[in-house]
């Protein structure tokens, strides 16, 4: 019984690892984290002085 369970499990894992959603899910979390950490700093450095209106 355990052998079949193992077979089904490996198949499931392989099938899931092949999908796009899995990789997107893996990548999007650190990406979001990094963006949320770096973006404020980046914007602060890039900030233009307020444009004067004529």
């Amino acid at each position, binding site marked *: *019984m355990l052998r*079949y*369970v*193992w*077979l*089904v*499990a*490996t*198949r*499931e*894992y392989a*099938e*899931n*690892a092949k999908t796009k959603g*899995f990789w997107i*899910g*893996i990548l999007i*979390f*650190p990406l979001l*984290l*990094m963006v949320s*950490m770096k973006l404020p700093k980046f914007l602060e*450095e890039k*900030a*233009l*002085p*307020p*444009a*004067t*209106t*004529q």
Partner: protein
Amino acid sequence: MSDKSGRFEKVIDRAVAADYQREENEAIKIHDARILTAYEESAGSQEKALAKAIGAEPARAIAAELKSASEKLAQQSAAAKMGIRSTRPTTRSPSSAPRSGARRWRSRCASSSRGSRASRSSIPKTKKKALAEIDKWAKPAFVEGGKKAGPYVPPRRRSKHVTGAPQGFRSGHALDLPPLSERREEDRGRRQSPPSSSPHRDPGGGRGLERGTRLAGIDYWCTNLTDNGLKDMVEESITNDIKQAAYEKRSVSKADLDLIQKTEVALKGKDPKKAEGEEEVKREDTMRQWAPVAAVYLLWVAIFTVAQMLLNNTTEEKTNRVIEVLLSSVTPTELMFGKLVGIAGVGLTMVGAWIGSFLLLLNLCERPRGTSRPRAGWRRWRPPAAGRLRRLFHPRLFVVCGVFLAIREHGELRSRRRRT
């Protein structure tokens, strides 16, 4: 700015000047930081090229020399910044306002001849020298406008300060408002505000005013409604003036007051559980404190994601009729268990990747600029004691699992008995 009372002329002037000065300081700070970063980046690549050309040892020596020189420059520029801060800012009178209006700041940087003279003169010579030195070191590409770029000079705020009776705006003024007298009539019609015939000489009467009090006769006109910097500055300035009048009436001197206001108590967090000499609460301790929160959040996200995945997977195979092919060779129990284990593996991989990337990110972010070795970060952070991990696999957990399994097996046995 229009001030009919004529009382706050100096105060408002000071606020405008201070706001402008603040902006200039900020801009110079950013400029310096950019140039230093550019220098550091270029220095790294230069060192590599040198090492290739003349060998690693002399190249390192040269790099060290360069680095010490650049640090000296940074100190100089910091000193120069202090010099700027201490100089009294010059305010521009409306008559000397430039006619050309708004220019992009980049072109302002590049054009050294057209930059505003007044602000240029407020930069001391040492500062200019330091900047020129840094400019020489940095790659020209990183310095705006190339070699000719002087210190960055931000656009000035245009302000017009009207005292007493409105005299009307010069046409073509930067703010481009209709003459003040017209606006005033309009305003009066709109808000039914009392005519400020009696200018307030002493609004607080030396008693101070309540929070949020509006002063009649003083208005702040502006076209940029989102920028509150100048308004806040003026408000603060006027508030301080009124406060000072109140203090003076109570014969409290400004110096005494400043001294008293400076009082500030700071407490350092200390942990009684730690060994002597290192009781102070450090960053790692804070992280250790917050790690469980992060773990709970991660668990929550993982459970939702993985449960969703499992459900999707099962229903998809049911609609595909793949499940029927599979069920011809394995029992439903085996299939479901296999699915659970497989999806659990997928979820664990995902969470593991997240944690790994988080630690990596932490390590990268903690690295101080210019050094290759991480000074602090997750390497210094030790995970919580093993006891806490052991608590995760508490015997109670196994008991609960066993009970669930027993119930399930019981049901299975009963159904099998019914079938036979």
